[in-house]
């Protein structure tokens, strides 16, 4: 049944691409998507880009302490977000997925609250910015430790299979993450159990300063799937439609009981690794400038133009509308107060044991 709609082959030499640089649809099949949805993709990529710019401003103005820009990852992240069933499937994201979690519907106020680390953060300001999460939306709160979320994603997928929940666990990570032992251990377990897990590498070819040539000697990331007996898809992650259609197919493939798989979405990192990084130390400006020529938004705009679905006025209005929305949410988040210092002692355990009670008292008296 899932068979009849198989469109993509694993281990393709060249990355799977549906829209070329000039915006032509180059696939052998019709996309068959209604205009609203095509435009929605654009809107969400634009929103992700604008969010990134807003976060940069928050850093510049000292309102937040850290960000991990996702500019260059928008097509991949929007493609992933639209391919999974929001609030039903689980997402195990990493810190560069702000565009992804926003597209999945994490309230903007929560996003900014987490960025500001104040009372508007459902996680009580406990983690660094770029560490979102939402139980309501089945978005597993980001953990800083690279690849440490891979085995938990495998476990959740095993539970989904066991309980026949009809869910899929989608787990994202960078190219550097593929070198961690937990990455290997987690994917191997999910694969051997035939669990509905889709592991997605947002491959921007850098781990902070380390180029992928020093990260692994493998031909690409997708081929690593051979080690687990699962399919590995090599995809142009600057092509939102390729990202969406491949993700959509493999997620439904997993849902239909065909087990785990690995997807490599090749993207660009348009900025430094993070607000704490200075990429000029290790990356030539020429290389960066050249990469910036391949902007997922520009390519998709060309595609929409060819479909008569894009014009400057519409795009500008969209920009304004999104900026307003984000600004309003930011202002609301900025109103929230600081978290109560004594919250430090909550949520360590379901209830506070005596030693945390004592330590809480100690701090309470000190703050009095």
């Amino acid at each position, binding site marked *: 049944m899932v068979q009849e709609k198989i469109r993509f082959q694993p281990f393709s030499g060249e990355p799977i691409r549906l829209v070329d640089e000039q915006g032509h649809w180059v696939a052998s099949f019709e996309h068959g998507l209604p205009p609203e949805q095509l435009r929605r993709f654009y809107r969400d990529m634009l929103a992700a880009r604008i969010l990134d710019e807003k976060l940069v401003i928050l850093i510049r103005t000292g309102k937040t302490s850290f960000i991990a820009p996702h500019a260059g990852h928008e097509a991949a992240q929007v493609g992933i977000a639209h391919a999974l069933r929001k609030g039903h499937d*689980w997402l195990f994201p990493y810190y560069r997925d702000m565009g992804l979690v926003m597209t999945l519907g994490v309230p903007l106020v929560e996003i900014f609250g987490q960025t500001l680390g104040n009372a508007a*953060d*459902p*996680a*009580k300001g*406990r*983690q660094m910015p770029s*560490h979102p*999460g*939402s*139980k309501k939306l089945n978005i*597993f*709160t980001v*953990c*800083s*430790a690279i690849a*440490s*979320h*891979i*085995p*938990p*994603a*495998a*476990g*959740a*997928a*095993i*539970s*989904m299979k*066991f*309980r026949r929940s009809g869910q899929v*666990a989608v787990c994202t990570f960078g190219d550097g993450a593929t070198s961690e*032992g*937990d990455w290997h*251990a*987690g994917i*191997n*377990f999910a694969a*051997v*159990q035939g669990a509905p897990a889709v592991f997605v590498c947002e491959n921007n070819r850098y781990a902070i300063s380390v180029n992928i040539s020093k990260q692994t000697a493998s031909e690409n990331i997708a081929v690593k799937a051979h080690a687990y007996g699962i399919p590995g898809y090599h995809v142009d992650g600057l092509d939102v439609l390729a990202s969406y259609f491949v993700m959509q197919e493999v997620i439904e493939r997993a849902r239909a009981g065909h087990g785990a798989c690995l997807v490599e979405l090749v993207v660009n990192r348009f900025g430094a690794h993070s607000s704490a990084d200075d990429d000029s130390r290790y990356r030539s400006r020429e290389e960066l400038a050249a990469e910036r020529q391949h902007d997922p938004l520009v390519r998709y705009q060309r595609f929409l133009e060819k479909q008569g679905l894009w014009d400057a006025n519409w795009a500008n209005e969209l920009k304004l509308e999104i900026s307003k929305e984000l600004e309003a949410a930011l202002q609301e988040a900025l109103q929230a107060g600081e978290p109560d210092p004594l919250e430090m002692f*909550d*949520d*360590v*355990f*379901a209830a506070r*044991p*005596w*030693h945390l009670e004592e330590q809480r008292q100690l701090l309470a008296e000190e703050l009095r």
Partner: protein
Amino acid sequence: MPTMTMIQAINSALDEEMSRDERVMLLGEDVGKRGGVFLATEGLQQKYGPDRVMDSPLSEAAILGAAVGLAAHGMRPVAEIQFADYVFPGIDQLFSQAAKLRYRSGGQFTAPMVVRMPTGGGVKGGHHHSQSPEAHFAHTGGLKVVVVSTPYDTKGLLKAAIRNDDPVVFMEPKRLYRAVKEEVPSDDFLIPIGQAAIRREGKDITLVSYGGPMIETLKAAEEMVGAGIDPEVIDLRTLMPWDKEAVLGSVAKTGRLLMISEAPRMASIASEVTATVSEELFDQLLAPPLRVTGFDTPYPLAQDKLYMPTVTRILNAAKRLLDY
């Protein structure tokens, strides 16, 4: 009431909890057909099937990390680490994921899981089948830590651990698996996590221990009694949170504390207990709280028995306290 060994108590606790709650499942290396290398899970795969008693690949990170995901998704996983010594390849899953999930998500996600592991020495296991890593867990906020010493406690505490909403590291001194049989109720009973057990009441000196060395501690206590000394013996049972009230109450009475553990000495549970007692009972102490512990070396096969606190070592330390 049936009599059971510790290993039988584990098996029966797992069996009862699995039949009570179908979210409870087991995973680990060789837990299936093999029934675990110590037979703790014997017969359970036949009874509950390979999905609920799951042989994992040979990776502790996979076992512990998958348990986090299983728990976050609503299961009640009981993971087995074949030997406590082998928790380290996967310990980041306990430290970065299990211990911090509730905290980092502001209480949105939790990891109610149990991690069973045979621990301690005395079985000629050498470096990697003898260690007692409890201090690593207790030092890490977000993990509860239980170390059992009797079949009865084992059943009651394991059932309580499985029903607990926090990640619980459940340590089983392997040298006690078949050491003794005792009466264990075949019906449902729980022992609350966090409560020590007073194994013997006395007034002259307080001996505090847990896990494997409870054997030597009780032997030493007997000899003391023979020598006209009246020791109080406390089995901590839970190390995080440990039962400070019980220990302080006893030492306030005896004025003397001897803490016994087979784990290495440096920055250990023994250090924590004696440091705390010194802080809080300074004026009531008749002698300095002392520790008898394992040595700060890797665990040597050739000195398998000498590495652990011997009855002699315990008695010598007690004598120092009593003669003080």
